[in-house]
């Protein structure tokens, strides 16, 4: 398996040097992109909750993540920055990652990111709280700030997505729909949601469309 071959090659230089730099660069690019997608769709909260870190995001927080691409970028970058050294040490130097256990090296890295995300998100919340206190002194509420920024960022389409998504109970389907509307390909969505195949994603979307159609027909019949 190529992942194993890569790790063996990198270990020859003690996970350092030009080749490791190149590898880590690509791991970081991958990680940032995946996290941005997870943040946009809100899937990251479901993922970390399943690992015991329930961050209980407020609806306004989810809305902000849909609207604010800078925030998604910042959280993704800082989470990956936290995860890179941990991943190098635990997965590579200490040989915590093993091909025979089934997870690919890309998936394992995203596991490290999911583990680090709650810390980064808590840091963001503390900063946001301090900021909001300052704004409260000016009489500006969170809702005001969100609506001002929303208009500026042409978020109308994104908000509609959010409205549509509210009706979808299953987190994976909700994420798949959000990511589809945001222009991710099915191959990317498969990767983002760690689905077995593209067909699995097609299946999710097909079942959602069918359900929506039936609901619409039900409405027009009634």
């Amino acid at each position: 398996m190529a992942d194993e071959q890569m790790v063996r090659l990198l270990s020859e230089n003690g996970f350092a040097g030009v080749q490791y730099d190149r590898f880590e660069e690509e791991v970081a690019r991958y990680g940032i992109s995946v996290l941005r997608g997870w943040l946009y769709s809100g899937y990251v909260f479901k993922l970390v909750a399943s690992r015991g870190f329930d961050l209980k995001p407020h609806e306004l927080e989810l809305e902000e993540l849909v609207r604010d691409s800078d925030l998604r970028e910042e959280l993704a970058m800082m989470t990956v920055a936290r995860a890179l050294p941990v991943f190098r040490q635990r997965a590579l130097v200490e040989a915590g990652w093993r091909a025979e256990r089934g997870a690919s090296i890309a998936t394992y890295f995203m596991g490290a990111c999911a583990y680090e995300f709650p810390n980064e998100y808590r840091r963001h919340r503390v900063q946001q709280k301090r900021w909001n206190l300052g704004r409260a002194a000016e009489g500006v509420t969170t809702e005001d700030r969100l609506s001002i920024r929303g208009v500026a960022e042409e978020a109308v389409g994104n908000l509609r997505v959010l409205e549509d998504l509210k009706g979808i109970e299953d987190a994976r389907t909700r994420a798949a729909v959000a990511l589809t509307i945001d222009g991710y390909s099915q191959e990317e969505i498969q990767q983002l949601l760690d689905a077995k195949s593209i067909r699995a994603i097609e299946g999710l979307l097909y079942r959602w469309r069918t359900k929506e159609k039936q609901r619409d027909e039900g409405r027009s019949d009634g």
Partner: protein
Amino acid sequence: MVDETDDFDALLESTSLGGAGARKLRSRTPVDRARAVRTIAHLRNRIVHDPAHAAAAAQELVELLESLGREAPPGPPPASDPGLVGDPTKATSFRQLVGAMEELRLERGLTYKRLSQRSSLSMTTWSDVLHGKRAPSLAVVDAFVRACGGGENDLKVWRESWYRVWVAEVLADLPGQEQRAQLAAALTGLMEHAPELAMTVGHLLRLYFVRSWSGS
């Protein structure tokens, strides 16, 4: 070398990072962004594991984050309006004035080191003043407002607040309320037209009515 690089890239593309979806996802993030993240990771690591160089690494990290526009929370108040947080106009003592300074410092996310870099004053001076160990002089308040990004209007507001507090502190132990009020009005008036003379008079008064603000 070219062959080696090509071989490495070919191997990389055959790993789980090279699948169709993963490749597309990677291409959504520019290489320089990934490099910045790696630098952030290395600096964070140095801060935690290399105490001897932690301060330099922290400084480098702050500068990198600033260059990425990441230090301040989204949409900070305009730089020329520090009075929004840490209002000095309500201070009636140096202790309260320092409280307003500390609020503004925290709101701006400025460390003592950063304050020191943005002024000609040492970290110790900033630490002493902001911990209440010594009263802020007018020069310190000026330097503070400028380090926080304040403009001329902000300087005026903070200076006036400092004058007012200073006069109150200087005259605090003067016997006789009426006499104190008259002197306060005279000193404040003098401050507006001849601040240096007013301060000399204040110092002379203080020699007779010594009162340490920090001990009050």
